[in-house]
C-alpha cells in the first residue's frame, strides 16, 4: 500500500479535526476556561487521534499486504476472489463482489475456449484418420496399376501423408495429456520404418543410404520417434547437394544411446544453428534453397523430443559439409535392471 497516498487521502478528515479543535478551543476560551485546561484537552485529542490513525493505517496496510501475498502465491490468479476472505468494510465488499463477478465471467470464457479447443483437436484427429482412407486407396491403386507417372504420384502421396501426420502431431504436441506409450523399441526397426515411409522420395533423388545397423534398443514411443526421423529425412533431401547421401548410426555415450542422422547436404550456417528449432525460423538455406520451408518441422521435432525426454541437437560445419542431427535417448538404469 502506498503510504504517502494513504495519508494524502486522510487529509480532509484531518482538516476537519483541526477546524473542530480550533472551534472548541475558541469556545472554551470565550466561556472563560483556563488556557492550561484547553491545552490539556487539545493534547489528549491529538494523542487519541494519532493513535487511532496509526493503528488503522497499520491494520489496513497489513491486510493489503496479505492479499498481495496470497495473489502472488496463487498459480491461477484469476481465482483470487475464490480464495480470499470476505472483507468486512462496506466499500471493500463492493470491490469483492466486483472481483467475484469478473472472475466468474473469466472462468466461463476459459471454459468455453477450452471446450472449443478440445472439440477442434478431436475434429482434427478424426479428420486425419478419415483422410487416410482415401490416401491408402490411392496408394494401393498406384502400386497395383503401374504406369509411367506412378512413381511421381507415389512421391506426392508420401508428401500428402507427411503433411497430414504433421498436423496430427502438432495437435498432439499441444496437449498435455498423454498420447504416447513408452516401451522397448529397437532403434533400427524405427529407422527402417521411416525409410519405408519415404521410399519413393529417397529413390527419386537417388539418395545413397549408409546404415550401420546395430541391435540397440531404447525406451520410447515408436510412432513419435518415427515421425521425428521422417522430418529429418525430408530435411536432408530438401537441403541436398548433387550426390545426396544419408548416414544413420548409433553412438554410445555414458548411459545414453545417440542416434545420429548425417547428411552431406548444404549444411547450416553457424549463425543460424542456434535458432533452427524455433517456430517459424527458416534461416538462410530455407529462404534460398527450399521455397516451401515452413519452419515447423524441426520445431515440432524439438517439442516432441522434449515431451519424450529425448535430447536433440544439430551439428554442422557450415557450408557444404552436411549436417548431423543427434537424438540422444537416456538409458534408464532402473528399467534395464528389471
Amino acid at each position, binding site marked *: 500500500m502506498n503510504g504517502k497516498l494513504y495519508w494524502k487521502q486522510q487529509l480532509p478528515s484531518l482538516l476537519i479535526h483541526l477546524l473542530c479543535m480550533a472551534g472548541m478551543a475558541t469556545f472554551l476560551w470565550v466561556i472563560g476556561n483556563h488556557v492550561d485546561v484547553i491545552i490539556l484537552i487539545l493534547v489528549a485529542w491529538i494523542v487519541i487521534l494519532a493513535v487511532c490513525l496509526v493503528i488503522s493505517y497499520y491494520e489496513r496496510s497489513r491486510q493489503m499486504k496479505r492479499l498481495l501475498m496470497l495473489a502472488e502465491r496463487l498459480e491461477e490468479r484469476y481465482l483470487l476472489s475464490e480464495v480470499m476472505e470476505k472483507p468486512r468494510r462496506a466499500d471493500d465488499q463492493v470491490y469483492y463482489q466486483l472481483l467475484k463477478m469478473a472472475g466468474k465471467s473469466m472462468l466461463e470464457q476459459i471454459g468455453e475456449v477450452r471446450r472449443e479447443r478440445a472439440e477442434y483437436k478431436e475434429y482434427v484427429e478424426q479428420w486425419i484418420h478419415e483422410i487416410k482412407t482415401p490416401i491408402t486407396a490411392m496408394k*494401393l491403386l498406384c502400386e497395383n496399376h503401374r504406369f509411367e507417372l506412378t512413381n511421381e504420384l507415389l512421391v506426392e502421396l508420401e508428401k500428402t501423408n507427411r503433411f497430414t501426420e504433421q498436423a496430427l502431431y502438432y495437435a498432439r504436441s499441444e496437449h498435455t495429456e498423454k*498420447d504416447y506409450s513408452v516401451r522397448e523399441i529397437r532403434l533400427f526397426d524405427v529407422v*527402417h520404418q521411416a*525409410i*519405408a515411409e519415404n521410399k519413393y522420395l*529417397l*529413390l527419386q533423388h537417388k539418395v545413397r543410404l549408409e546404415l550401420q545397423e546395430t541391435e540397440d534398443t531404447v525406451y520410447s514411443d515408436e510412432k513419435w520417434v518415427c515421425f521425428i526421423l521422417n522430418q529429418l529425412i525430408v530435411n536432408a533431401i530438401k537441403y541436398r547437394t548433387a550426390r545426396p547421401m544419408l548416414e544413420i548410426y548409433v553412438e554410445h555415450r555414458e548411459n545414453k544411446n545417440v542416434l545420429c542422422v548425417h547428411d552431406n547436404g548444404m549444411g547450416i550456417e553457424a549463425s543460424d544453428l542456434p535458432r533452427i528449432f524455433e517456430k517459424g525460423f527458416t534461416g538462410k538455406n530455407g529462404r534460398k534453397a527450399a521455397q516451401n520451408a515452413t519452419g515447423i518441422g524441426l520445431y515440432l521435432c524439438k517439442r516432441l523430443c522434449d515431451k519424450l525426454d529425448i535430447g536433440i541437437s544439430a551439428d554442422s560445419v557450415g557450408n557444404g559439409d552436411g549436417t548431423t542431427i543427434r537424438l540422444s535417448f537416456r538409458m534408464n538404469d532402473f528399467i534395464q535392471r528389471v
Partner: protein
Amino acid sequence: MKQKILIVEDDPVIRSELMVLLEGNGYEVFAVTDFSNVMECVKSFQPHLILLDIKLPQESGFSLSSKIRAFSDVPIVFVTSCNTDMDELNSIMLGGDAFITKPYNTAILLAKIASLLKRAYPVRGNETLSYQGAVLHLDGGKIEYEGRQVDLTKNELKILCYLFRHAGTICARADIVEYLWDHKLYVDDNALSVNINRIREKLSGIGLTDFIKTKHRQGYVL
C-alpha cells in the same frame, strides 16, 4: 495349396485393391461385403489369416476379433487409420496378432502377412525356387546347378530371388532396386550393377554362363 486370407474392410476401393494385391502375391482371397454376418464368412471360408479393419459399419473390429477368438486361433491383422495407443493396446488385448496403420506400405503389409503365416503354419523343408535346372535355396542362401553350389550374400540372394520369381519377363532395374529396398537392403543403381556382375562371376563358376541376360535400357531377364 494356396493360403486363404479373409478381408474385412468397408471401403470398397481399398477392399478390391487389397484383393488384387494379395491375389497377385499368390493368396486366395475372400472379401466380406455383408457386415452383418462376418462370423458366417469366417466359419465357411476357413481362412488362414484375417485382415480386419477396426472401424466397420455395424460392429467394430475389436468386438469381431474377440468373437472370432472364441472359436479360432487364426492370425488376425488389424488394419486401421486410427493410430492411437488405445487402439493398439486394445487390438493386442483382444487377440490381434499385428497392427498396421493406414496408409500402409504394401511391402510391409505383405512381409507381415508372410511372417505371421510362416509362424502359424510352419512349412517343413527348405523353400526353393528353380528355373532351367538352377535351384535357389532361400533359407540356406545358396544356388545349385548340376550338383555344384555356391554361397550368396544377402544382396545377391534377394536379387536372384526377384529374378527367379519373375523368370522369363524383363525386370527393370528400378523395380529390382525397389524390391531390395522393401527388404531393407538399400542398394543404389551403381551397387546393383556391381552386384549383378558379382553374381554372374559366381554363376559361371558353377557352370551357369549367360544365365542373366542384359536387356539394353530395359533391365535384366533370366
